[in-house]
């Protein structure tokens, strides 16, 4: 059976490394220009170069999103930017606006291009259209069900990419201007104010239908298709995409490693049932309620988020392991923790340990009771060597 690519987001160089080390086959990143997610830190050309070197060293791939919908003024510098990306040898770009395709073709720039989900591609004819334009991959609309996906895959010979995890636009991608009209922030150039998640009063003429307990919102549950992965793999899908260039390294490590485990277990042993451990892991990383999106048809309110209380920001991530020598773990603190807390350590090489914090030491190896400061360097006694970029999380009962 074909092994699909596990494609993860990376908002900066550190996240790129984490995503790849924790099992992604490829990452997608945004440069300083021409990329949606203006609030993500985004990569300088130097960072992209380093990211590509790192990825290629591990035989993995880097795709750069060039996915804004351009206005006239944004066209300046596009050719030069694409030239640079070609020179850096990125493995492909993800574009939404056909001006990017035009520029690549016109100047014979050596770049693979994928057509972004912003084009809302929902049928075989549209896939053929973009294939004829020279695209090597199409990112399908999130509105596609599994049965539709199977049919699309059977009818094309270019690569198809499908979203499996993360936040979703509630609109057809690229076809929402709520943010533009309501907050003058252009969603198709990366400025979206997520107006779909706001609370609205709903009226029928002058009569209010909503009240303070049930304001109208268009907010969507996040996507979590972990338990559908075996079906997706069997369909021959080429790439499984995780959303979230703005997400934390903890989120990335947890989600990527869970998906890696599930894919590998299915391919190696045909295990369709996702282990509780992986489900639990994904739940720990989630900060909003999740649903199945459109994969098994369409289930109306099941995929909507009506209750903000369903959002639960995660605070479990307590530290990033910088080093370990078989005696101590050197840790950078990320959230408050203290002696006697139950914690779990997990790492890029599938390390997993669960233990109680018996003693904490500060940078000078003085014993302390709590680790209260973000980014504080602390030490924990630990008699095993673990991989750098391992993470510690608090067990919250």
């Amino acid at each position, binding site marked *: 059976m074909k092994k699909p690519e596990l494609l993860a987001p990376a908002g900066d160089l550190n996240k790129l490394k984490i995503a790849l080390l924790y099992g992604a086959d490829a990452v997608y990143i945004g440069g300083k220009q021409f990329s949606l997610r203006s609030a993500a830190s985004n990569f300088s050309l130097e960072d992209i170069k380093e990211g590509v070197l790192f990825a290629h060293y591990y035989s993995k791939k880097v795709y750069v999103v060039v996915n804004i*919908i*351009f206005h006239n003024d944004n066209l300046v510098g596009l050719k030069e930017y694409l030239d640079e990306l070609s020179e850096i040898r990125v493995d492909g770009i993800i574009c939404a*606006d056909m001006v990017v395709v035009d520029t690549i073709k016109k100047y014979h720039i050596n770049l693979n291009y994928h057509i972004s989900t912003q084009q809302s591609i929902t049928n075989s004819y549209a896939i053929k*259209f973009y294939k004829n334009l020279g695209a090597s991959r199409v990112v399908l609309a999130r509105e596609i069900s599994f049965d539709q996906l199977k049919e699309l895959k059977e009818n094309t010979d270019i690569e198809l990419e499908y979203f499996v995890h993360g936040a979703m636009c509630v609109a057809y991608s690229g076809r929402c201007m709520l943010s533009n009209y309501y907050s003058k922030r*252009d969603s198709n150039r990366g400025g979206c104010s997520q107006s779909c998640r706001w*609370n609205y009063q709903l009226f029928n003429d002058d009569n209010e239908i909503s009240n303070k307990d049930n304001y109208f919102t268009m907010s969507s549950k996040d996507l979590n298709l972990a338990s559908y992965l075996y079906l997706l793999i069997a369909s021959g899908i080429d790439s499984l995409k995780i959303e979230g260039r703005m997400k934390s390294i903890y989120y990335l490590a947890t989600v990527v490693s869970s998906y890696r485990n599930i894919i590998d277990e299915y391919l190696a042993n045909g295990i369709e049932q996702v282990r509780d451990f992986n489900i639990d892991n994904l739940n720990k990383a989630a900060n909003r309620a999740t649903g199945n999106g459109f994969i098994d048809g369409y289930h109306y309110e099941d995929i909507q988020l*009506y209750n903000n209380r369903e959002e639960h920001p995660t605070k479990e991530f307590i530290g990033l392991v910088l080093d370990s020598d078989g005696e101590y773990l050197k840790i950078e603190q990320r959230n408050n923790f203290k002696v006697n807390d139950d914690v779990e350590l997990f790492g890029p090489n599938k390390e997993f340990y669960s233990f109680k914090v018996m003693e904490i030491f500060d940078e000078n190896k003085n014993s302390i009771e709590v680790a209260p400061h973000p980014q504080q360097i602390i030490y924990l006694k630990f008699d095993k060597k673990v991989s750098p970029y391992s993470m510690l999380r608090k067990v919250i009962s």
Partner: protein
Amino acid sequence: MSKLLIDLYDFDSINDYLALNIKSFIINLQEFSTEKTLNVFLEQVEIINDLDDEIELFINLDRLYYNDDFNSLSSILKKLNKLKIRKLIINDAGVVELIKELGLKFELINGSNTLNTNYQTIEFLSNYYRGFYLSNEINLNEILKIRDNTNAMLMVQVFGKQLMFSSKRKLLTSYFQFHHLDLIDFNSQNPLIIKDLNDINNKSYIYEDSNGTYVTTYKNVNALDYLYDFIVNDIDYLYLSNLFIDRNSYLRVVNIFSSLLEQTINLDMAKSMFKDVNLEVSSSFLNDETVFNLEDIKKMEGI
């Protein structure tokens, strides 16, 4: 020479506009387009098409389609071809490919109201489309720069509600079901209204059809002040939407635009006539700009 492009209410209303010498109409086909004020079946297209030799129909097929839709789409395209319909407004690149496969010839208008924002894209896509409906979120200067840099047929909305959002999700149905509310009508004939809880100026119409949910502006864009620029710069079609506007008001508005275009009134007269129509209007993005860089967003929001 710019022409007005308008919507209909019913078959009778066409005579009102023919009397104003307006002959370009957008026709929404049931099942194949996003529902609007009038949604007709193919047989009815034939009747309208036969009314006057000079009538120019733009058949709106602006949905996104799934594989299941393509048999019926093929058959409707063949029938439209037989009726000698030439102009189709589409939103899905799959339709371009299907038409090619069927060996049919239409003048295709790319109807995306969010993606047609620069001249180079339009020039490139002119290999596949004859015309482009320019996105509602670009301003006058951007529109004119596009005009300067392409020969494609261009359409700009000059009046009416603007589409802000389309989703496959049944957002209203879901909301009513989730909260166990009695279902009411919320279709293109009976839209509901949403108001942002934190800013009452953020107010929109919302409705559903069998393919999803749509949000439109509450106010009507009114481009009277910009009409001269559009005319002298040869914007080919100036579109006036009738969505959620009563028939009489719309006719009066069309009359004002038409008179200004024909130079039987001047701008001041047009504006003063407009006041009497009593519709809430705005200039939308024609005279405005959006931001997208983090620094600009922070500056705008005073952070």
